[in-house]
């Protein structure tokens, strides 16, 4: 069946992709700006003979996901910011239990209730986590409606292949905007979960899934094993976008929705003779440190742009700490106040002058 391009809202695109990916169980509590996901799935899941439960809270929703994931089915919840805060306990347990599941996090502005404006203020919440213990939430950040679909697929695949929670980290802009996209077929192989999932101890020993472990050495080994998976994910499942990096003197780093606007500004800068490139990590956690370090070794400066007060910034700085001695500038804005292409362009121009002209002593703008 040929799939047509459609005019799709980001939240609906994610919901449709979840159905297409074979999500069997969805549990959630409404919160703007992602409520359309739950609205769509409240009909689509039962119509497809799958499970939908309007959870009494996000605390319950993530624990329903834990239970569903423990049976080996593809399970998902979606939420936003202050409500994802309520899921941190459950996410820590899911990570410790090595249960596959997908969390769709559509960021709004914080802290606290903040408001429903699109923001990237939950980079820390997602990649550093509020849950206890040593674990990571594998995170993919889309920057278009098409990527919302493609990365929903990727999230289910990676979660099932590596038995880990995966977060699709979007924001209110991506969730609410409409643009043409294709809901293609789920492109990944199905991963057999029958060797560990709970389905009743028939003709086999009973299984248990638990994060608790009395034997210290066994617990240590388990956590180390979980971290080996993150290394493997970084090696095998890393996705990123490099734009005009070759020969660039200044590289812009940005993720998600703002990276699109930054890309337009980079194009304009290139047209005006500035040697500027863009690096957009799509896998945010584990963070692609090596790639950032390699880029840093070839450029004279980095300008990190985020819709927050500087969160990915610290991963960028950590990545290049031992690789290069170059200035890392930051341009960010909290509270969901979107930047225009012109604003970013002006910032690029200022930083480019500062970094490049100072070094080469020529006016190349």
């Amino acid at each position: 069946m040929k799939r047509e391009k459609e005019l799709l809202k980001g939240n609906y695109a994610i919901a449709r992709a979840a159905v297409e990916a074979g999500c069997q169980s969805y549990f959630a509590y409404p919160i703007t700006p992602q409520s359309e996901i739950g609205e769509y799935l409240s009909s689509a899941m039962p119509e497809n003979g799958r499970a939908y439960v309007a959870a009494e809270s996000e605390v319950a929703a993530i624990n329903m996901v834990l239970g569903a994931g423990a049976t080996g089915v593809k399970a998902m919840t979606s939420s936003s910011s202050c409500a994802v805060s309520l899921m941190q306990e459950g996410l820590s347990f899911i990570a410790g239990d090595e249960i596959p599941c997908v969390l769709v996090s559509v960021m709004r502005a914080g802290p606290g209730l903040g408001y429903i404006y699109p923001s990237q203020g939950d980079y820390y919440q997602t990649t550093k986590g509020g849950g206890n213990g040593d674990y990571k939430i594998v995170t993919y950040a889309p920057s278009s409606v098409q990527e919302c679909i493609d990365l929903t697929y990727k999230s289910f695949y990676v979660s099932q292949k590596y038995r880990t929670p995966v977060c699709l980290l979007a924001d209110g802009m991506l969730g609410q905007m409409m643009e043409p996209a294709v809901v293609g077929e789920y492109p990944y192989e199905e991963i057999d979960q029958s060797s560990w999932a709970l389905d009743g101890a028939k003709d086999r020993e009973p299984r248990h899934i638990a994060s608790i472990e009395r034997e210290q050495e066994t617990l240590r080994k388990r956590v180390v094993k979980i971290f080996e998976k993150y290394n493997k994910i970084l090696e095998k499942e890393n996705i990123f976008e490099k734009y005009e990096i070759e020969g660039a003197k200044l590289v812009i780093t940005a993720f998600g929705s703002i990276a699109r606007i930054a890309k337009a500004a980079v194009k304009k800068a290139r047209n005006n003779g500035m040697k500027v490139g863009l690096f957009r990590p799509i896998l945010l956690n584990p963070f692609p440190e090596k790639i950032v370090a390699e880029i840093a070794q070839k450029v004279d400066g980095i300008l990190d742009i985020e819709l927050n007060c500087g969160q990915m910034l610290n991963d960028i700085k950590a990545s290049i700490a031992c690789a290069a001695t170059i200035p890392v500038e930051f341009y960010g804005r909290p509270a969901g106040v979107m930047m225009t292409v012109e604003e970013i362009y002006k910032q690029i121009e200022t930083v480019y002058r500062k970094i490049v002209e100072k070094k080469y002593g020529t006016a190349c703008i």
Partner: protein
Amino acid sequence: MEQLVYKKPDSIRDDYRITFCPGCDHGVAVRLVAEVLDELNVREKTIGIASVGCSVFSYDFFNVDIVEAAHGRSLAVATGVKRSKPDKVVFTYQGDGDLASIGIAETIHAMTRGEKVTAICINNTTYGMTGGQAGPTTLIGQVTTTTTKGRQVDISGYPLKISELLKEVDGTAYVARVTLDSPSAILNAKKCIKKAFEAQIKGIGTGFVEILATCPTNWKMTPQEAHARVRGEMSEVFKPGVYKDKVSEA
């Protein structure tokens, strides 16, 4: 000729390791649940939820698939399991602190939805595993490590009556409070637990049994004294009985 008159239920592991204190009622309660799973012939399709508290190591003795839940979240986890695998028998085994304090929202809403699961709640009026602190069911006047002069209403309020609360929830199909302080009480408790499983197997709604259980370690009593307390002051406040039975009506 030898005749086997008493044996370990199949739903208890051959290599079971009981983690409860000597004299505690948990062991009897676990055995009753296991006997019921055997008698209903559902062991091979049962998924249990281990809750935080003294029952967290349920997989050490129950011979069924088990998934752990965070403190209070057992009935949310049970919901996720049952909705994903509706043909399985799903039960939680929780303490009163888990089910009625930190998890009261999950408890009430799972039962309001009428989830086809069974919840067994051990009510021993204290947080046993953490060393005997006051909980939601601690009796007025009861001395614990956090109510050293006895629970006072003006400071800590009243003990929560779990079965009375849950019988009012529309989705519950069976609600009973039982004790384990005598052979007849144990036989009655088993009947009630069986009904609570039949409630989900027959698809009527949530089955719930509250077991008034002893905690001799934290109560600082002998097992006999502890059972006398169950019969006495605990049963006066928490009256045993069947509070709701849609299973027999069905």
